[in-house]
């Protein structure tokens, strides 16, 4: 009985290690790291009234948050899902209040990460868009 219990324990532990390695690999494939060096990107903001601002940014930053803060003021907080933006240039869209939020787009597509986890690439266009819930 003890031998079987020990063997099942070792098997489960091995499964745990294998799963951890697979998840690490999945993470690296799903979210590729930003390239090093200077990058030229476009950062846009679309406010609640529909007005928009566009900025050409030259940056060495790895993530959108760092790159965008060269031209924008971002307010928010660190959460388990990354940096959640509650205001851009003073314009508030706090989803906790149930009305609107700041959506992030990368090259026209809805971003799958928070601003501090979204890598930036040379030539990319990134947008903060006020969207109603």
């Amino acid at each position, binding site marked *: 009985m003890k031998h079987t219990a020990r063997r099942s324990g070792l098997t489960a532990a091995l499964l745990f290690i294998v799963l951890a390695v697979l998840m690490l690999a999945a*993470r690296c494939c799903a979210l590729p790291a930003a390239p090093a060096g200077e990058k030229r990107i476009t950062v846009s903001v679309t406010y609640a009234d529909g007005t928009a601002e566009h900025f050409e940014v030259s940056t060495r930053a790895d993530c959108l948050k760092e790159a965008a803060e060269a031209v924008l003021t971002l307010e928010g907080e660190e959460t388990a899902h990354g940096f959640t933006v509650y205001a851009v240039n003073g314009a508030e869209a706090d989803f906790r209040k149930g009305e609107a939020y700041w959506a992030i787009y990368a090259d026209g597509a809805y971003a*799958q990460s928070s601003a501090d986890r979204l890598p930036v690439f040379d030539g990319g266009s990134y947008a903060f868009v006020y969207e109603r819930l």
Partner: protein
Amino acid sequence: MPSSMKGSERGVSGVRRAREIVRLGLCAALLFVLKAALAPLPNIEAVTLLVILYTLWFGRGALLILCLFVTLEGAVYGFHLWWIAYLYVWAVLWLAVTLAGHRERSTLFWAALGGIFGLSFGFLCSFPYLAAGGIHTMLGWWAAGIPFDLIHGFANFALILVLFSPLDSLWKRVNGPKTK
């Protein structure tokens, strides 16, 4: 059987039931308080360890503890999208422990099970996002949280490896081998 004996038997049964209800309530409170106490440490929690132990000790009674715990969590932190995941994610762990607990298992096994559960936590919690935003939202949400799942998995593994045996031994010493 004389009615007086039946009455005393009912009395003993009633006391036992009341004791059980209080015990389950205290166990749920312990889950909630420990989770809150460890909240400053991201994805490091003792809930997995306790759910495994409660399942082994109480069997189906552990489901009542989980109901209380999930209700408390929703009442205090709000009934948002994450709470929908909480409705089933701990029941998945309960089921896994119940199925695995039919045979004698080592501490390493339970640590690995808790670790695997921690690694899978993000994926299990991503299903409400499938309904909310589709498959890409779900997978994106999950992928972004993988570093936290890795912390969760290894933290569960370490905590259970260290604390499972002492807590289980203490329980058996106080209550006897089986309490289900």
